[in-house]
């Protein structure tokens, strides 16, 4: 989902940066407040950040004959709320933009918006909805991580289609083209991310049951599942 360096026109690049920057500031504030109030959460936040680092480094083959990577930000969004994952996603994207020439500084705002904002917020929303419907925790976690991952790639497709509309078909035709590249490729990878997130949450439920119960989001899911 990384839009490459220089591949968004300046107006778009600036616009996405202007949208993402205040959310990032809010996310940093929310994360700091949560850690000051609950220092025991540091370990699990580290695990959530590590999960995002690990998964977003893995480029997996997909049925469309191209490779793409999961994002790993859904897990943290379920544990700590979506705001806390904005700075984590930002760090991952900055690392890749500076050292790997993957993504870029001019497109950082747009990439942060898709991977560190839309992804976590969709994951969080799906989890809340699934818990409210009374689905089991595993199913809720799977749906949340999987759909959050997909949402990130759909967002990237929208961003590119907006910047590069088709000469004939306009935005829609261009969106279909980019979604065919990004969203379709992502389907099996998003399923994998959903399954891996379930594994990690199961391990946390076994080993860190106490901390997990104190997390507002998970507590909600656990209460419904019980």
């Amino acid at each position, binding site marked *: 989902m990384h839009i490459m360096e*220089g591949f968004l026109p300046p107006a778009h690049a600036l616009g996405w940066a202007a949208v993402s920057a205040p959310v990032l500031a809010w996310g940093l504030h929310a994360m700091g407040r949560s850690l000051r109030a609950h220092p025991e959460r540091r370990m699990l936040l580290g695990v959530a950040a590590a999960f995002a680092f690990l998964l977003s480094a893995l480029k997996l*083959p997909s049925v469309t*004959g191209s490779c793409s990577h999961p994002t*790993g930000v859904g897990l943290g969004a379920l544990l700590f709320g979506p705001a806390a994952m904005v700075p984590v996603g930002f760090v991952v994207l900055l690392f890749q933009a500076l050292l790997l*020439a993957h993504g870029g500084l001019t497109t950082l705002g747009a990439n942060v918006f898709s991977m560190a904002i839309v992804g976590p917020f969709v994951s969080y929303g799906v989890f809340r909805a699934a818990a409210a419907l009374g689905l089991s925790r595993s199913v809720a976690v799977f749906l949340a991580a999987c759909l959050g991952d997909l949402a990130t790639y759909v967002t990237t497709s929208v961003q590119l289609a907006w910047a590069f509309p088709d000469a004939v078909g306009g935005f829609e035709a261009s969106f279909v083209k980019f979604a065919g590249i990004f969203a379709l490729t992502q389907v099996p990878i998003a399923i*994998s991310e959903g399954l891996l997130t*379930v594994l990690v949450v199961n391990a946390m439920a*076994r080993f860190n049951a106490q901390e997990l119960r104190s997390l507002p989001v998970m507590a909600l899911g656990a209460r419904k599942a019980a």
Partner: protein
Amino acid sequence: MKPRTWAILAAVLLLTVLPLWFAASPPALPGAEAPAMFGGSDDRAQQAIGSLAPGYKPWFEPVFAPASGEIASLLFALQAALGAGVIGFWLGLSVARERARRADGAQDARAD
């Protein structure tokens, strides 16, 4: 590990490996040769931009680009290793903590 954990791991493995045989050939964009199998979707998007807006020139270059594909994969491996290392530390610590807790419980039971 529970059977369900094994089943989930197997499913992830299959989802990753099966595309290597069953993936469709990527469609060639008009005016370009067919892209190589299993290239990055990011690169394919870059080609799509090239066909949608042939006149578009990237206006900014990466500040630092890995000197070769090998260096790039080194850095990606480093990123994954960092993540996996932290997760492994947490899992190891958790298992050991649980074992210690259980041993404590057994000792308490004998003392009673």
